[in-house]
């Protein structure tokens, strides 16, 4: 069995129409190990989000293999993929995407309810995670009562709640002011170090690039640079 959490080999995603073919992901081979704090960067249209969607099981590759924890998820049915995402992957979206009618605590525990965890366990872990992201005192607030930065912190707590193998974060700081973005990144870095949670970002944000310990650069769907920072 592979020691990598994420392993792609000659991964392709090709969009076809009558006139042309677009290679959104063009033969990407990539390995991500446990505990990495990695940013995928590149200009708009370089295929960052498409690659993240493929890794997250939200989209299916045209060709190539995509193994998560040694399991080739490109062979899974859509129903199996939903279940796979629920138990193995945490998602952080650009625009938070919290459920507006639920409180911060309920938003975090919701995913554990989906997993069928006991209510008491879900409640205690939700509070633990909200404390970890610095929102223990806002557990009963609905998203509308929280700032953008606070909502994104709840989204991080939600992503961690299912105890995923890794977290995919698509432009998580794009809608935040610089102070909120810095706080969020500090918090994610701390969680990465303390809990050894793997983070994979798709971003343009130089602040994330500065924090990331590995930076993979994509251009026209291909990896053109893969730098692992020292220390």
């Amino acid at each position: 069995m592979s020691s990598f959490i994420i392993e792609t080999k000659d991964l392709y995603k090709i969009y076809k129409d009558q006139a042309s073919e677009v290679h959104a992901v063009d033969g990407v081979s990539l390995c991500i190990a446990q505990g990495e704090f990695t940013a995928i960067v590149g200009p708009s249209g370089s295929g960052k989000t498409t690659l993240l969607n493929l890794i997250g099981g939200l989209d299916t590759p045209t060709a190539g293999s995509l193994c998560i924890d040694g399991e080739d998820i490109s062979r899974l049915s859509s129903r199996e993929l939903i279940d796979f995402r629920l138990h193995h992957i945490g998602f952080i979206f650009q625009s938070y995407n919290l459920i507006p009618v639920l409180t911060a605590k309920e938003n975090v525990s919701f995913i554990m309810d989906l997993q069928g965890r006991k209510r008491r366990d879900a409640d205690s872990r939700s509070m633990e995670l909200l404390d970890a992201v610095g929102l223990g005192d806002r557990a009963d607030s609905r998203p509308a009562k929280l700032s953008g930065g606070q909502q994104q912190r709840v989204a991080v707590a939600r992503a961690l709640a299912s105890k995923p193998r890794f977290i995919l974060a698509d432009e998580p700081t794009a809608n935040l002011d610089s102070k909120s973005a810095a706080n969020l990144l500090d918090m994610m870095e701390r969680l990465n170090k303390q809990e050894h949670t793997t983070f994979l970002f798709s971003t343009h944000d130089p602040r994330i690039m500065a924090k990331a310990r590995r930076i993979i650069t994509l251009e026209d769907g291909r990896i053109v640079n893969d730098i692992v920072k020292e220390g």
Partner: protein
Amino acid sequence: MKTILVSLAWKNIWRNKLRSGMILGAIAVGLFAGTFMTAFMSGWISRSVESDIRNHLSYIRIHHPDFDANNDINAFFMQEDVRSHIASVSEITGSSYRLELSGMLASAANAVGVAVKGVDVADEKGVFLLYQTIPDTCGSFFPDDGRMQIVISRKTAEKLKVRLRSKLVLTFQDTEGEIQNVAFRVGGIFKTSNTSFDEGCVLVRKSDILPYTGLPAGAAHEVSLMTSGFETCRSALPRLQTLLPGMDVQSWDVLQPELGLMFRWIDLMNGVILAIFLAALSFGIVNTMLMAVLERTRELGMLACIGMSRKRIFRMIMLETLFLTGLGSCIGILLGLVVTGYTARNGIDLTFMLEDQFEDFGFGSIVYPVMQLKTFAGIVTLVILTGLLSAIYPARKALKLEPLDSIRY
């Protein structure tokens, strides 16, 4: 999981309070109208039918098999032959053995054709409530003053231009075909809510008329039987038919098929009207839920992304629709039942519309709405069906959303 799904669905319907409030109001008003209208129509019809049964028809009537529409005076039976059989049927609460003759009733001013009922006063009062329809100022049901008394309706009195204690002559054929003329005094003038009955029927004491008929003592043309209601009538009828195979044992809806038909017709109409109400409401429900789904495309996509199965998303939207329909229906039905309960006690007086002209058609002018358990169960079933059918389309719409497309929406 079920709890959070239920809780989330409940919270979701209150996202847009105005929109949900509007559709809840529409459902509640629709169901209130449907429930109350059903109760109103049922009450109107059943009261009219019950009034006919209690005043002159009875639940079950037994005739000699040769007694036909011509009221053949010779088609009689002896009371002793049937009394013990009737007594053995526990559902029967009262019986009145009657003579039935066709004749001509004449005053100094006019003459009318009538059906004459020869009754035993005590037995008649034990079965029919006709005696209660005689106002205090219009005499009574055979006052015990020894005179030959006849009880006629107000309509007949008007046609014959007679009043209380006026003299009338009844002409009829006896068993030998001989014409008999018997003089009576008007002892009481009744008025029911059934004009056609009022116009055609008069009552005399059986003991007064029997000597003129040529019939033997103890003879009767019919026996009218009372039960506690429609249900007991239905259970008593086949037993009586078995016990009295040589007699015509008929229930009220056979004796007057138009009444039975009216009952069934009203049931059908109530069902059809309620179904139309609910079908119209279901378009509103589908529209509201569809808007709710389309507005939440991104959120539903996010739920699918993080691992909420399509089945659960489908179930959540189904629950939201059912909550909306259920809540609105409960409010409407409850309101309908409260108003039905109030009006059932106090009645709704319709005389302001057409005075007492409803009575010309056999309907009372005061309506007492009634909600039967069977009707209530029908309404609830229709509501559940509407909720389920309305829920399917929006839920299927949510089911078809692709997570990736939806999250970008």
